[in-house]
Each structure stands twice: as C-alpha cells, then as structure tokens.
C-alpha cells in the first residue's frame, strides 16, 4: 500500500491542535492526523495504521458534547471532514435516498436540498430527478448544530427538537458502509438484523451497543460512536417537507405556569397537525442568551426577551392545510391564556428565515452556557461544564423540574435547565466556578441519575456517551448487557483498535 495517497500530518502546538478537542471541551492527545479525501483513502489509512498497531479515533465535525471525537489513547486521528460530497440520489417506490460521504454537514445538506441542486458525483436517473423536483424534501432529524457532520449524527444518533414527531434518528439512515481493518467492509442495509443473541433486559430507551430482540443492525451501528468500524458512506432516507410550519415562542412571567402549559401540550392529540417540537427554557437559560447577545453578532437579529419573562416554551406545529393550522393556533392561544400566559409575550414565525431565528435562539442556550464556562476557565482552566442528557416518562416533567431547581439551589451552584418536554428530556447544565463546586456538581449528577433510573428513565438520550459519560453508562448496564457489548465489540473490532475510550 502506498501511504503517499493519503497524507499523515503531525499534530503539535502550532498545527492541528484544535483537532485534539471537541465541543465537550475535553482535551485529548495524539501525534498524527489524516484527512482522507474519499472512501479508498479512508480505508487505506485505516489499514496502514492497523498494520502498524496504531489505534485510531475517527472524527467528524467535532461538534459532539460527550467527547466521542476526542482522541484518547489513540495514535492517529482520521478526520472525515474532507469527505463531504453528495454521491448519488436514488428513487424507490416514491421514496428518495441520498448517498453521502460522512463529512457532509447538515448545513451543506440543507443548502443542497433547498437549492434543488445536489451536484451528485454519480448520474441521477430521470425518475429520481423528477421525484426530487416534484416536492420539497428534507432529512427529518434536526439537531440544532448545523455544522455537525452526517457521520457524527450517525455515530451518536443525535436527534433534534423534532424527535417527538419524527422518531429516532436511525430511522432516517437506510444503509451504511462500515469498514474495519481487521474484518473488512460491510454494506449494511435496513432490514439486516443483528444476529447476535439479544439481551433479555429490555429498556424503553435505546442503550448504545445493546442488542434487542429482532433489532436492525443499522440501529445498533447508529449510536455506536465509531467503536465498531469506520463509516465511509451513508444512505439517507429523505422525506417530504410538511406543507406549513409555524414556530411559537411563548414567554411566561412564572416558571410553574410555563411548565404546566408545556406539559398540557404533550397531551394534545390532533389528526390534522403534528407537534414537531416542544421545548422548555428556564430563567437562567434566557438570561444566558441575553448575555451572549452582547458579544455574538449572529444573535443580533433576535429581539430582547420580553420584560418580566422568567421562562419560555417553544413549540413547532406542522399542518398540510391553512384551516388545520388556523384551528391549531387558535387552540394554542386559548391554552396559553388559560395557563396564565400573555399573548403579547409570544413570538411567532412561519417563514424559513424567521424560523431560523428560533433555531438560533435554541442553539444559543447551550452555546451561551459554554461561553460562560469559557470565561471561568480563563481564571481556572480545570473547570468544565457538567451537563445532563437524562430522560424519563413525560409525566415526570414537573417533579423533575422542581427537583433540579431545588437541588441546584441547595448545592449553591449555578445552572440552567432547558430542553425537550417530551420524555422529560431536560438538559441541566451546571456551571461550577471552583474545584469544590465541580465535586458538588458531580455528586448531584450521580444522585439525579439514581433517581432518574428509579423512575424508569435513562441517563443519556441524545448526546452520546463518548468519554465523559461512560462511567455513568456502565454503572447502569446489567452484567448480561455488558457481556453482549463485549461480544459485539470483539466481533467487529477484535483488537480494540477503533475509537478507544468511547462507551467502553
């Protein structure tokens, strides 16, 4: 094999140093990095490293917040950002499937779908072309970080605010090409079952690498954080964009009123409309965004939050007809006022560029909290943000919210609570300022995890396990689940050579 076809570069303080970390702010260590430009280069680089006994960390856009892309105990980073082409479009029974390289980002994909120009590498059949031109298409999963790569989305199973309507992210991957230097290349398609003996302890929540009964192998791979193989090609299942989408951000003067309103919305069942997102923001989250606005010019278009706002609920509603939308909006308005909300404290949007402001706002919440941690780190570099990705049955929303705020106050910590209302999937971000506060925050997380598990929840729903949450992950796996994971890992990557430190 000729190494010159792919270039391995040295990582040092002046070059590629930023590739040693991701959005988790975890700092890794590695001597070499390679940016393959296509599938062949990626495979060749992986085999070259394997033959020399070098362990590899595969990276996408490094937007993950659990540290899965951070090289730890690795000798080579395989960064896929230059493999970002759209390869082909295929039509089958009225559905469209788009083959892409894993480095393609969500924003690149959205731009291509919106413009109608895919610039695919392979010729597109007239049937596929006609179907593509005949409707507006989308990749339904909607993580707010649009610079995330599709490979990263697949690796972590990252979802977005619309998961409540569109379901798990893995559903939208129809095939994946997986490469393991020790085992070779697989073309895995939807419908290929994971044949390993399923574990008996079934959970309502997806646990990475744990195989359930008659589970699709693609669903096992999605969320496996690169531990089973290098993903070099993905087939996305596109869906038709809904006819109309409205986003409504409702501010409340009282947090309990906001939470009660949000919970009531989860019980809403209609045939003509779909709730494509329901999010909650506490006062600390709103204030953090206001603070970030002072320095982030991209947030300049977001108006100041209404005076007196102490919490907010964002919901996105989709409908095919104007009548259905009108009815749904009237009902929402009535519910809002019943809950004690004020119509004049709402923001509404229906055009893509207006909805983009809401996406920016939603994304600005964790970003502003990260910014706050970065400020603290200037004084105390060992400080980091401690966040949760806990979920539980939706009816636990109100007790959980009360518990989080009460415990944060009692521990004397600063923190913000925001996130998905369905599955009570609130993200608590704790912002310690001292070493003592870090300890107290970790204790809180452990105590909450115990209580979450006791109420039938799970400790990591959408952000991945990576390196930051693996202790917690392993603590809540049964012996049978651990054994099953070990067998799976051994089958795909017997030498433990791929993405060491993730999950296991």
């Amino acid at each position: 094999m000729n190494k010159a076809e792919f270039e391995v570069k040295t990582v040092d303080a002046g070059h590629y140093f930023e590739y040693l970390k991701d959005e988790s702010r975890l700092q890794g260590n590695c001597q070499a990095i390679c940016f393959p430009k296509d599938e062949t280069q990626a495979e060749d680089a992986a085999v070259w490293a394997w033959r020399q006994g070098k362990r590899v960390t595969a990276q996408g856009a490094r937007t993950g917040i659990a540290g899965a892309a951070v090289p730890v105990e690795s000798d080579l980073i395989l960064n896929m950002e230059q493999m970002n082409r759209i390869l082909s479009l295929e039509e089958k029974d009225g559905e469209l499937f788009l083959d892409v390289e894993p480095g393609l980002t969500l924003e690149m994909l959205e731009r291509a779908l919106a413009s109608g120009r895919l610039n695919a590498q392979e010729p597109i059949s007239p049937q596929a072309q006609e179907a593509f031109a005949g409707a507006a298409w989308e990749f339904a999963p909607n993580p707010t970080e649009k610079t995330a790569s599709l490979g990263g989305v697949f690796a972590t199973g990252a979802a977005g605010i619309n998961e409540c309507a569109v379901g798990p992210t893995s559903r939208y991957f129809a095939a994946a090409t997986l490469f393991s230097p020790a085992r070779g290349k697989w073309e895995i398609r939807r419908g290929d079952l994971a044949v390993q003996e399923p574990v008996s302890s079934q959970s309502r929540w997806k646990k990475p690498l744990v195989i359930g009964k008659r589970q699709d192998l693609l669903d096992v791979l999605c969320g496996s954080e690169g531990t089973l193989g290098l993903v070099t090609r993905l087939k996305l299942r596109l869906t038709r964009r809904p006819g109309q989408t409205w986003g409504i951000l409702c501010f409340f003067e009282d947090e309990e009123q906001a939470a009660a309103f949000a919970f009531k919305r989860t019980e809403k069942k209609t045939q003509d409309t779909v709730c494509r997102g329901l999010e909650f923001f506490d006062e600390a989250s709103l204030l953090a965004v206001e603070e970030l606005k002072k320095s982030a010019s991209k947030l300049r278009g977001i108006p100041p939050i209404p005076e007196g706002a102490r919490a907010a609920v964002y919901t996105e509603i989709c409908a095919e007809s104007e009548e259905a939308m009108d009815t749904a909006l009237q009902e929402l308005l009535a519910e809002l006022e019943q809950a004690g909300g004020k119509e004049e404290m709402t923001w509404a949007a229906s055009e893509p560029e207006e909805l983009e402001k809401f996406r920016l706002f939603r994304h600005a919440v964790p970003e502003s909290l990260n910014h706050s941690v970065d400020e603290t780190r200037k004084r105390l570099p060992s400080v980091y943000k401690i966040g949760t990705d806990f979920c539980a049955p939706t009816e636990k929303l109100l007790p959980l919210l009360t518990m989080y705020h009460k415990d944060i106050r009692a521990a004397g910590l600063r923190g913000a609570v925001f996130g998905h209302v369905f599955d009570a999937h609130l993200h608590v971000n704790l912002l310690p300022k001292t070493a003592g506060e870090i300890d107290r925050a970790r204790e809180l997380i452990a105590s909450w995890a115990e209580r979450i598990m006791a109420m039938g929840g799970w400790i990591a729903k959408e952000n991945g396990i990576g390196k930051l949450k693996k202790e917690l992950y392993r603590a809540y796996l049964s012996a049978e689940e651990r054994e099953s994971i070990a067998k799976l890992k051994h089958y795909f990557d017997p030498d433990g050579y791929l993405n060491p430190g993730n999950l296991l």
Partner: protein
Amino acid sequence: MKIAVCIKQVPAGQEAEIDRETGLLIREKAAARLNPYDYFAIEAALCAREKNGGEVTAVTMGPTGAKDVLRTAFELGADRGALVSSPAFAGADVYATAYTLSQALRALGGFDLIFCGRQTTDGDTAQTGPALAEQLGIPSISWISEILEVTPERIAVRQDLSGWELFAACPLPCVAAVGRECNTPRMPTLRGKMAATKKEPLLLRIEDFFDQTPAHFGAEGSPTRVTRVFAPERAKAGEWLQGTEREILAQATARIRAQIKSGGNVHDGDFGG
C-alpha cells in the same frame, strides 16, 4: 401621528436573472422577500407610533406578488398597507420610483413622518428615500444609526457618516432612512401574525394619482438607461516575500513606504500572502 413606511420586495437569494435587453431584473422568476433594511424601517415606524399614537401605513410598489411584503408589515403591527401596482410603473429607476411613491403617499392623504430602509439589497443605491423627500418637497435625513426622539414636531437622530457621527434634528414632515444599527426588529406576536393573514392591502393604480400621465412613470419616466450589467474585473497581482519573519516584515514595510512616497494606494492583496 400619520406614519408611512416605504418597503420593497427584493430577490431572496444571491442569484437573480437579468433581462439582457433592458438590463432590468426579472422579478417574476426570483424567489422574493422583504428588503432586509426595511425591517428596521418598520420597527422605527412602530416605535414612533407607540410613542406618539396614530397609525402606520406600509406602502410598497411592485407587481401583485409584492403584496407578500405588506403581509410581513401587517404581522409586525402595521395598521394599513397599500400596494402601488400598475403595468405603467414597470421598469422604474430611482427617479421614477420616488416620483411614483410620492404620488401614492399624496393619494393616501399625506404623512407626518415617512420611514425607509437605508437602501435595498437589489438596487443598492440608497437614493430612493432622499429622492422621495425631494419629490414631496420635504426634508430628508439619511444614514440614521440611532433615533433619539420622535415628537409630533421633529425627529432627532444620530447619523453615521463614514467615520463621523452627526447628531441632527429635522422638523416634520420628513423622510427618514434608517440603517441596521438603528434598532432590533421585533418578532410578530402569535395573534398579530394570525390576524395579518386576514388583512387586505389597498391597491393604488395610476388612476388613483393626481398625476395620471403614463409618460411620467415606469421605464418611460426613468432617465436612467442601463447599457450593460457586468461584474467588474479585479486585477490581483500578488508577490510572495520570502525570508525570516523579521526580513519579510522589513521588505513589506519598505514597499509600503515606497508606495506612500509615490502617492499610490496600498490595497489588501498587494503583497499576495
């Protein structure tokens, strides 16, 4: 207070088709949106109304599809809207546009304060506001970066004049052209946005004007002739300087000094990398 805000529909993206014969934009084919600067003008108009009472009328000139931007103005809180549309208005340059708008504003009964966005993203002239004031025979105040006060008698502003700030006040009626720095446009409320779908703008045609001479409007009434549309070529001559950091710095400094001595300009890129 009677407040008008003049707004415009512009192409939504970077790409728009141009008629090779006339040099004019083919608006019917392009995806369209409200001119981004006009959001700031609408916000300024709504704030002036909140302070002084009265009503805000949004006025736009364009084909029938342009009424979409009036809906945006309704959503944000405009009380009335007028679409100025007639085949006779097609192909208007800045002069004819300003004249048409002045006729429309007169037909609507006149206004105390007229807001415009600083410029549009398609024409980019930043002249329509001042030209409109001229046609109406009232003062104009442009490049507004902050509105300090609006009273029934005057508007006081801070103007950003390329490195200089000017604090100025202008008696009403007048035309005020506002920039992006002026405010942060609001988001529509849910009820405001829903109600906007049911509001209909007034349609103004040439027959509604005091001046009904077709030759005064549209392409015929426009002194500007577009002879050619092209992207200017940019000559980029670069030179790589080599050596240690200190040596490169010394070479660069010597060249800059020489340029200044010879009275030449120093541009970005003159020194390649």
